[in-house]
């Protein structure tokens, strides 16, 4: 299976905002546990819309649903801000207090693993 290198960005979307106070819901899961990519990049790794991809960085890995578009150029992937994006962002603040939420080097490939619901995702941090 083909794997690609990408720069990962996280940020707000309207559907993420509409479910800010509703984070344990299916609506939030559907809106936020996704990765928007350029169509050519999706072709490159052999993934279609709504199939799962694993996003891996030096800080962790997470499985999310691939989505087309989001205005991303090739090589840029976008995960809405939330627990799935934050599973792979860096806590290094470069002495400024701000974690690296944007511009993280990532590897992305198609995955057969399931996208964890938020409660299961949080369980990974326990123990």
């Amino acid at each position, binding site marked *: 299976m083909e794997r690609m290198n990408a720069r990962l960005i996280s940020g707000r979307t309207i559907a993420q905002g509409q479910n800010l106070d509703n984070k344990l819901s299916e609506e939030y899961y559907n809106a936020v546990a996704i990765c928007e990519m350029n169509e050519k990049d999706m072709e490159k790794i052999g993934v279609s819309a709504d199939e799962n991809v694993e996003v891996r960085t030096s800080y962790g890995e997470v499985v999310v649903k691939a989505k087309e578009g989001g205005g991303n150029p090739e090589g840029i992937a976008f995960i809405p801000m939330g627990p799935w994006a934050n599973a792979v962002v860096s806590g290094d*603040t470069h002495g400024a207090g701000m974690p690296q939420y944007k511009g993280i080097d990532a590897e992305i490939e198609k995955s057969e693993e399931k996208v964890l619901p938020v409660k299961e995702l949080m369980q990974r941090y326990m123990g």
Partner: protein
Amino acid sequence: MEITDVVCALCGCVCDDLVVEVEDNEVKKVKKGACSVGKSKLMGHGRIKSPAIRENGSLKECSYDDAIKKAAGILAAARRPLLYGWSSTVCEADKVGIELAEEIGAVIDNTASVCHGPSVLAIQDVGLPSCTLGEVKNRADLVIYWGANPTDAHANHMKRYSYISKGYWTAEGKKDKKLIVVDVRETKTAKVADVFIRIEQGKDFLVFSALRALLLGYEDVVPEEVGGVSKKDLLETVRLMKEAKFGITFFGMGVTQSTGRHNNIVNAIQMTRAAHTHTKFSIMPMRGHYNVNGFNQVCTWETGYPFSVDLSRGYAWYNPGETSSTDLLVRRECDAALFIATDPGAHFPGESIRHLSKIPVIQIDPFANPTTEFADVVIPAAISGVESEGSVYRMDNIPIRLRKVVDTEYLPDEEILEKILEEVRAIREKEGE
């Protein structure tokens, strides 16, 4: 019953002209004024039903008094507590929070730390030539959104205050204005712009530098391409900036959360100053939560510093990078944390959450969220701006009073904090005996 002039407690736009239909003490409809995100908040979601304390891994419902006593016990016993959040609540609650932080020698920090904290650092470095959103509405004929996507994140911003709004000197709305969007992605905001400049990720500092040089007349030092932007496009941007009667740059997380952080903002502010050699130009951070700015105001007048304030020494110590929440948690320094009106479970890096799952955590919030999954004490609160009132600061530093539109049994944040503070003082007094 129709209630007019309701204030939206969602984002930094703080829209204050909402019309809401209330029946049987319930918001039935948002008739006017709110965007889809604000409307969603006002219409409400599932609430935390009762205070609860975690026992043997599960949350067990309890009384407010028991939860408050438990929370106070945790905070009074902690050696390095963190009190974090404060941006989706009112200034009155923030003030009590700072008093509590002083009492227990805590670090107090708000969500600016992972939002516009770098902007605050830059403003402390070089100041901020800014204005109010009213001035933007009435005067601006050039609007730049840089690393900001209001169509998704501040959905009423363009309509109420900038590109689409009709003002005194911009009576024709967007016909009288130009919109430039600078972003890595072709966002929904970029799609409606007159000019979209696609920048390479993490190259904002370079592009601000190039525009500064061009505005100051040093065309010869600018190469043919900077950060993925051609010199031709840079020159065209500068032409539009010089020709504008009043320009404004709104900047967002694209600039603060990327490589360079506060240095990017310093350069953005210096670019604005360079534009002053030609015309009127202003710059403003797109503050996220409706009162993220308010906490920075209250914290500054109470401690001298806007966020990430360490009160453990008996005086205020401010050093973001050391005293900021992410750094404290990644260093595994905190031994207890209180989170109010925020959700670090969803919005902090995994590395921070790993430490939070090992220390006692108190959550004060109207809604269950990922933080509830590891919180040891959960205290439900009234929804500020719907069930309780208070003061907040809009992104342009204008204070606005939130209204209460329905009654509730839940306690407001301010009252919960006052009770915790009272209980902490009682414990400490007893310990001192």
